[in-house]
């Protein structure tokens, strides 16, 4: 069953075309890597799929719902890790997650579970601003799975994660549909059977093992 169906997704920033008619069908449980140079449109595509950015043209359906009209309802299904961790530096790791449990309307007991899963149990009481960049990234990933999303959208999640990035992300991605932007082709190959290569906002050929996008 298709979880994500995008038809002709396009986006402009002023006169600049960031995405030019991307078509995409993603089935439940599939993992897809989005590859491309800086400025290719990866982040824009991910933000559109996460409903953080409204495309200037095209249609997007997620879990059968129109993503342009019902984005707030869809956010129960979507977990998003943006380029910046977006944490509250004065709050502890646990407090950061508990705050987002309240906003996601899930039990606060999810916070310690997510911290343990991401290997942050030992720093649970430390302020987010005092954590290393890698730990902050783990905390941002933990936040994205608090509400057990069906669709996980990860913008360069391996940034600063260190040597065990693949293993960690593999655990997080298990049993979920995932779209992940990365510059690490080896990691993409390891975690994602499908790959979408973007160039100047358009989908292009097959960099490694690609089966994409129709």
């Amino acid at each position, binding site marked *: 069953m298709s979880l994500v169906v995008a038809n002709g997704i396009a986006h402009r920033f002023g006169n600049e075309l960031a995405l030019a008619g991307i078509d995409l069908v993603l089935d439940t449980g599939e993992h897809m890597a989005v590859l491309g140079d800086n400025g290719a449109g990866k982040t824009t595509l991910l933000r559109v799929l996460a409903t953080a950015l409204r495309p200037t043209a095209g249609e997007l359906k997620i879990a059968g719902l129109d993503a342009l009209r019902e984005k*707030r*309802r869809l*956010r129960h299904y979507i977990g998003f890790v*943006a380029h910046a961790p*977006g944490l509250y530096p*004065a709050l502890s790791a646990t407090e950061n997650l508990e705050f987002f449990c*309240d906003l996601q*309307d899930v039990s606060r007991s999810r916070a310690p579970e997510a911290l343990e899963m991401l290997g942050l149990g030992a720093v649970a009481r430390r*302020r987010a601003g005092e954590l290393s960049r890698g730990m902050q990234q783990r905390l941002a990933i933990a936040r994205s799975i608090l509400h057990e999303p069906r669709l996980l959208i990860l913008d360069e999640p391996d940034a600063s994660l260190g040597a065990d990035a693949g293993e960690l992300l593999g655990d997080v991605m298990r049993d979920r549909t995932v779209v992940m932007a990365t510059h690490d082709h080896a990691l993409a190959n390891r975690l994602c059977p499908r790959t979408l290569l973007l160039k100047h906002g358009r989908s292009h050929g097959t960099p490694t093992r690609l089966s994409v996008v129709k």
Partner: protein
Amino acid sequence: MNAFRVAVAVARKDLVSEWRTRELVPALAQFIILALLIGNFAFQVDSRNATAIAPGVLWLALVFAGLVAFGRTFTAEREQASFEAMLMTPASPVAIFAGKALAAGAMLVLCEAALLPALSLFFGTPFSLDLVAAVLLATVGMAVLGVLFAAMVARVRARELLLPLLTLPLWIPIIIAGATAVQAAFGLPGSYQEAIGLLIDFDILFVVLTSLAARFVLDE
């Protein structure tokens, strides 16, 4: 989705962050005391004119403190990208707005806790419950308008300039009613009851209008 839970969580998060960093309230309280001190010397206050001058100094200090307090409501979150993370949840933008306004209003109330006794000290004006009620009622309207416009200008480069330009015209009715209430509380001519009634009316009007507008301002 429990809007009350969201609003309380947002307000608590802002207040805990402020308590731990102490970035805003101590500086604002200091600013308020300095404003009163300058007012005290600049107007050559004596026992005959103190009650006439004090309300003006009080509202000037409160307006500028409010602009600084509300202007910072979204700035740090925008810079740290945590605001987008908050908006990416299913939580209602209106509940998020209510939480932000609650926290910003509470911080201004903390500053008022320094302002009102200091006003009595520097100007020798009577400290009364009527005075406290007038200032608190004005704070409600100022907070909801200030936070709404702070959200609107948070992404704009000239936000420090735009916020007062947008906010001050809509604060004027609140300040006029508040000033009348404070003057009456100090024993000067004017109906306290009428002024307080007006403040309550403005509060209801601005709370309803800003809640309706918050959905559109915060959502996109």
